[in-house]
């Protein structure tokens, strides 16, 4: 059984990530941009997982995992930098 609607849901998540680009570009402060970038990372991760399920190849899940790790490290380091203790 192959579910074609998984690709449709993945496209919906990518559209949501595109909407968040407004906050990433025009956010008034640095923290807003950092949160928006983190959320875009999460949404694209979800799209990658759905595409991995559709195609049945687990390579995309590895990519999503590595993106998640990098997003976490980036968010934490931006937080530390804003606090002034890097």
């Amino acid at each position, binding site marked *: 059984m192959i579910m074609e609607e998984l690709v449709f849901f993945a496209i919906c998540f990518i559209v949501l990530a595109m909407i*968040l680009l407004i906050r990433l570009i025009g956010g008034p402060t640095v923290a807003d941009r950092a949160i928006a970038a983190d959320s875009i990372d999460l949404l694209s991760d979800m799209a990658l997982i759905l595409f*991995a399920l559709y195609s049945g190849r687990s390579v995309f899940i590895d990519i999503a995992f590595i993106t998640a790790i990098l997003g976490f490290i980036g968010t934490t380091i931006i937080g530390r930098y804003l606090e002034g203790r890097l």
Partner: protein
Amino acid sequence: MRIVIDVLIVISLFFALAGVVGMIRMPDTFCRMQSSTNIATLGILGVLIAGILYSAVCLHDPAMAVKLAVMMVFYIITNPVGAHAIAKGAYKHGIRRVDEELACDQYGEDLEDEE
């Protein structure tokens, strides 16, 4: 089975939409942070649980299901750490609400007492 997976993904899509709308509409930085937590919890959990069900039942690929479960635990552990780091950093950096005052700010009062 197909219906269960679809319902899980639609729930996750709804909460991701709520988080995105909240991030666009909320009035200040910390409230936007609360909305982004909305994406990071039920949004990602719905997709991951649906993925575990689909890869275990439909694809007969247990390695993929185990990988998704590890990813779920990883998200649960690391998300609050990042949110806490960026909230504290933004407060110490001097980002406040501009148009109105906060309802109460006991953290700022205690920080001033220490200095």
